[in-house]
């Protein structure tokens, strides 16, 4: 192939963005130096990176391409008081001091825009189609919903991006997951991604940049698309992405940190060219039918262990391979569930609405719609934690907070909260929670706590009934 035809060879979206960010590839080296347009930081994975920078006598190369948020271990109540946990307080103060020292934009604890980093960054317009973005956080893939390469890294790589505005990377393989048709009523982006992870397993996407495509994906709002890309990592894929279209541009237009006016319009023309070329070849293609997807509930201790709400807790013996059987058995033991129990008979102690998976306005609207005119079941404690201050304000202006509090939910300040329970919001050993977040690992919501992942509407319905129900049969008020 001559270079001319290579230049015109059909490319995937991942290839296009990769190629346009290539800084240098040494001869014979299979990793490259890739330019990183934007870095996001939070208090938990950045302190050692800033410290490393200082120790080496370095400075951030482009502080204007870095933003930071306090989200992981911030309390969701009593924000006017100092943080009670001295270690968490120190971490929050450390981020504040680092941002000040190096001139980095910080969304601080009591700023109205503060919230979970993956909610705040798009909301504020830090996320551009066609760009590269990293963050010391595995759910960074969320931003790929806007058509960019967004990946999670460790802290050493946070330092690397701070110091050089680049990362050394090996190109990933590409996978396209196409979902044909339309999701049924009551079936959401969360159910879609839980279904896909179940089919691919927790490691099925490892080594791949995954592009989600097809009619069911195109029909999703930006919130829904972010929910899908957010969980790409739960099947092992560091990168999840969706081609930008009018839905994307509409969402981004006018965001505070976004290009404005003519500049924005010109950028849109460029962004339209990002979609994978029609005849681009992916290393792997997988196709699903949206009609097969139903509301999902996880029963185990990894996000791939889910079934339809109409199913029963599976029999470990029903799995093909011995590894999966062993894991299912251990999971059922941890979750204190018996094989054969209908999912709708699983009783709950807690319901958690929030996180970077489902903490956006659309999620609270869906949950409020279910809750309207109902009360949370006796014995269930339910908290609603907006993904950001902006989401919170929007929900309040629509009167949603009233619906939540009338139903008996606690209406909290934004943050990661019970999604990883680094702040005071956590389960006690043995407690069982329906959560809208992304991980049901052992102890994720508190040592000995048990998590079932579901969509916001499913979580709200479960809060009312005290056990899971099929939200497709819900009587709305």
């Amino acid at each position, binding site marked *: 192939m001559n270079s001319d035809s290579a230049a015109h060879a059909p490319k995937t979206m991942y290839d296009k963005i990769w190629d346009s960010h290539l*800084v*240098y590839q040494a001869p014979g*080296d*299979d*990793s490259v*130096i890739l*330019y990183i347009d934007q870095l996001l930081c939070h208090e*938990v*994975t950045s302190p*050692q990176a800033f*410290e*490393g920078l200082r120790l*080496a006598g*370095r400075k951030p*190369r*482009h502080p204007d391409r870095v933003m930071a948020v306090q989200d*992981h*271990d911030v309390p969701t109540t009593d924000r006017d008081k100092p943080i009670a*946990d001295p*270690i*968490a307080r*120190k*971490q929050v103060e*450390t981020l504040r001091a680092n941002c000040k020292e190096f001139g980095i934009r910080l969304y601080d604890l009591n700023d109205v825009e503060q919230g979970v980093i993956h909610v705040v960054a798009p909301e504020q317009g830090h996320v551009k189609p066609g760009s590269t973005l990293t963050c*010391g*956080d*595995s759910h*960074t893939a969320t931003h790929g919903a806007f058509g960019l390469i967004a990946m*999670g*890294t*460790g*802290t*050493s*790589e946070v*330092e*690397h991006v701070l*110091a*050089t*505005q*680049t990362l*050394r990377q*090996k190109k990933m393989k590409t996978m396209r997951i196409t979902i044909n048709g339309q999701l049924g009523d009551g079936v959401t982006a969360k159910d879609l991604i839980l279904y896909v992870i179940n089919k691919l397993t*927790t*490691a099925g996407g*490892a080594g791949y940049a995954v592009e989600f495509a097809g009619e069911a994906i195109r029909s999703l709002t930006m919130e829904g698309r972010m929910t899908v890309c957010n969980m790409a*990592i739960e099947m*092992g894929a*560091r990168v999840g992405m969706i081609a930008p279209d009018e839905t994307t541009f509409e969402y981004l237009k006018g965001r505070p940190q976004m290009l404005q006016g003519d500049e924005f319009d010109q950028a849109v023309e460029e962004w339209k060219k990002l979609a994978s070329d029609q005849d681009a070849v992916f290393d792997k293609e997988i196709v699903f039918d949206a009609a097969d997807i139903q509301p999902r509930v996880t029963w185990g201790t*990894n996000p791939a262990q889910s079934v339809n709400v109409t199913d029963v807790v599976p029999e470990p013996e029903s799995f093909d391979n011995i*590894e999966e059987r*062993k*894991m299912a058995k251990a999971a059922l033991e941890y979750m204190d569930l018996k094989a054969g129990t209908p999912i709708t008979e699983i009783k709950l102690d807690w319901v958690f609405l929030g996180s970077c998976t489902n903490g956006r306005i659309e999620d609270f609207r869906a949950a409020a719609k279910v809750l309207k005119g109902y009360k949370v079941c006796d014995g269930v404690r339910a908290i609603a934690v907006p993904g950001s201050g902006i989401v919170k304000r929007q929900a309040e202006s629509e009167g949603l907070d009233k619906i939540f509090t009338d139903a008996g939910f606690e209406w909290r300040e934004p943050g990661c909260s019970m999604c*990883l*329970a*680094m702040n005071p919001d956590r389960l006690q050993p043995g407690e069982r929670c329906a959560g809208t977040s992304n*991980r049901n*690992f*052992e*102890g*994720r919501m508190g040592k000995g706590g048990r998590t079932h992942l579901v969509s916001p509407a499913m979580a709200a319905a479960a809060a009312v009934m005290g056990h899971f129900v099929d939200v497709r049969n819900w009587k709305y008020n």
Partner: protein
Amino acid sequence: MQAFTKHEGLVVPMDRSDIDTDQLVPKQFLKRVERSGFGKFLFFDWRYLNDDYAENPEFELNRPEYRDATILLARRNFGCGSSREHAPWAIADYGFRVILASSYADIFYNNSFKNGYLPVKLSEEQIEDLFEREARFRPYKLTVDLVNRRVTDEHGLDLTFEIDDFRRDCLLNGWDDVGLTLRYEDKILAYEKAHGIV
């Protein structure tokens, strides 16, 4: 970073898949702003019975025969979950120099190379064989040679493993990534000029 060339050590088997980073270091220990001292939090929920660090005698690492293990043998998808580098910091600080597994989560694998220990990828069959050998020859030692990409024991085992050249070089020499990249600062500058980045 500590360099790695060759290591001989005792193997501790952990017969599990999907060992996630929440298990490697639970979140309550992520609030520290230091990089060191994470070893005692490694596998906290499995390793201790309570918050006072009372050891769970059942847990592999606490068994007397595995106290001095420096090589961790596990199954597939090791290190899945969160990107926290606290997990690699804990592994290194505990004293592990090698992990053997059939696959790793991408971010964890990447993070490992910045912390001076070696994650070795072997096939599921090879891993199975190592579990059997460990049971048969306990206390079981392996020698892991990064220069020649080989894993050997005293009973005739001789495996080769794959690892990309760049990562191998960095580990062999204990190089610092940022310093390496900054050798190409002129290329970064040229890229920024060409893209109007100032």
